[in-house]
């Protein structure tokens, strides 16, 4: 007989809280129970449900390295009831945590291959885990191209990290802003317009994306037009999530439960669904 589902979270402590930009904070959390901490494992791309006492739960992707599963980084943007309070937490504060949930980035599949990371807006936290993962195991992967688009140039967080990544061997970083301010080092326009500027080998590349759906869809369409296989383009999707275990029904996207079948999907599986408004 299968083990019954555990609904409740565990207690976790804020180890540190780093403000990335106004309203965006990275919380590093540790389960306070030693046995839970020791047993916890995750894969990049998966998410946890973070619970704020008396307020509620939200799904947040894990952005730290899977080889250090005792301390879990979550980058949170304050936009709602729960997240507006999460970004104010300080070291020592307690939250609830359950997870990890969902599918992960195809890192085993990407070994020995080139990796193209395409991100848009503020939604780059889920792929930062991929970039960090590759940087820590640089010899296992081929050429790395990181393309980041934002609406306004001031929206770009982690500027120093992009600069550091750019200095790594066999790595290129391209930035694009629809509205570029003074001293913007990157392209003015859409992130997809950067595809022409970098040498991309469709057959040798795994592409990983996150960001607003219209941007991911435009980028995936553009890339498939360049000969990329829809099964080698991976998207991290977002939907309303309450239970995270494919029971509550909120996160459905066509036949998929995004919490269980996603959040990371190959474009070939969801491309047609992305083309439909209001699904």
């Amino acid at each position, binding site marked *: 007989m299968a083990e019954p589902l555990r609904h409740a979270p565990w207690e976790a402590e804020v180890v540190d809280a780093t403000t990335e930009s106004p309203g965006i904070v990275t919380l590093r959390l540790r389960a306070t129970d030693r046995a839970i901490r020791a047993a916890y494992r995750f894969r990049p791309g998966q998410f946890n449900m973070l619970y704020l006492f008396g307020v509620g739960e939200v799904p947040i992707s894990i952005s730290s390295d899977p080889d250090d599963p005792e301390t879990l980084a979550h980058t949170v943007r304050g936009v709602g009831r729960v997240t507006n309070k999460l970004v104010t937490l300080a070291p020592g504060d307690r939250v609830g945590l359950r997870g990890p949930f969902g599918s992960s980035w195809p890192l085993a599949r990407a070994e020995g291959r080139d990796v193209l990371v395409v991100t848009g807006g503020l939604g780059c936290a889920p792929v930062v885990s991929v970039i960090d993962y590759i940087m820590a195991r640089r010899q296992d992967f081929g050429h790395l191209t990181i393309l980041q688009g934002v609406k306004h140039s001031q929206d770009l967080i982690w500027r120093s990290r992009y600069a550091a990544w750019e200095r790594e061997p066999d790595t290129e970083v391209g930035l694009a802003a629809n509205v570029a301010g003074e001293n913007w080092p990157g392209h003015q326009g859409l992130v997809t317009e950067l595809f022409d500027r970098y040498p991309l080998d469709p057959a040798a590349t795994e592409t990983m994306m996150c960001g607003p759906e219209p941007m991911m869809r435009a980028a995936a369409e553009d890339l498939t037009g360049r000969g990329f296989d829809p099964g080698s383009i991976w998207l991290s999707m977002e939907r309303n999530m309450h239970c995270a275990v494919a029971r509550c029904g909120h996160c459905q996207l066509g036949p998929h*439960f995004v919490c269980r079948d996603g959040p990371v999907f190959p474009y070939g599986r969801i491309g047609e669904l992305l083309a439909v408004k209001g699904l």
Partner: protein
Amino acid sequence: MADHFLPRACFQALFDALHGQGYTCRGPRVRDGAIVMDEVAGVDDLCFGLRDRQAPGSYALEEGAGRYFAWANGPLALKPLTFAPRETLWRAAKDGDGALSFTEPEPAPEPVAVIGARACDLAGLALQDQHFLGDEPDAYYQARRDNLFLVAVNCTHPADTCFCAATGDGPEATHSFDLVLSELDHGFLVRAGSDAGAAVLDALPTEAATDAQNADASAAIDAAATAQSRGLPSQNLREFLFANPTHPRWEEVAERCLSCGNCTNVCPTCFCHSLETVPDLEGTTADQVRQWDSCFTAGHSYLHGIVIRDTTAHRYRQWLTHKLAGWHDQFGRSGCVGCGRCITWCPTGIDLTEEVAAMWADFEGGGADG
């Protein structure tokens, strides 16, 4: 084929046997003008001689055959008995130092016997079982399910809104029951479907059933199937609906749909629920409460400040496409069991079979997707 016949005069013995085994009995009673499965002490509490007249947006009780079960179904299936409309899943407590602890209450189900479950209800229950008990079973659902004793009654009086014959789920109860009855003029054919049912059957003062009684019961079931006029063009509309997300009919039905969620509430298979955090007044504990939700609400698709399904057309499409298409991927069959409740209890009388037929006509005519 049933071997046992329980004379109507001995019907009370079923209630006595169930009470003797510790069950609270629920059977058909009239509440607010509709038949519901309410608590009954015995046979005298059951409604008798009534039938239901159902049509799109309309339900009325009237005098019918001199029987207990000469009606089709009421607004509530078995769903609230296993998937509670509202319940606490866990409780968080915060101590003076800010430390949090979490506890899950032990399920405390009471044994309940339902007398009068329909084939469509059992089909809905089997689908809910698949959803809540697959992989990691939900302990609260499991406990209530394990404590449920089901006396099915084969349906002989389908409503005009029924189409269980088309979905393959009725009118004969074929699974998931402990006992199944066929009501005849002077009593009931009885057959057990589980060991628990066989034990109750042993305690009943039954007579040997005759071939003539069995023939009458079969004929009544056959007649209940052929009396149904509604249906769906196929038991698998997956490809068809996924291929038609922009059909103009979605906008058209949205003009009539109030987005009220009645259909999802009365549906025996709809499982969507929300999790709500309910703190106490002192701020020391907070319950995480699961309650029924509906894909017709704005909150259902809320995502960091936006509503993804922001029109009634999007919400109706989500409901119908999930029910008749997405379920095939998720559960290996359609999520519709043909009970017709969503048709009857829709305040504007929207009939899903009509909506599907309107789109199907274009599909067959080669003009799929408008």
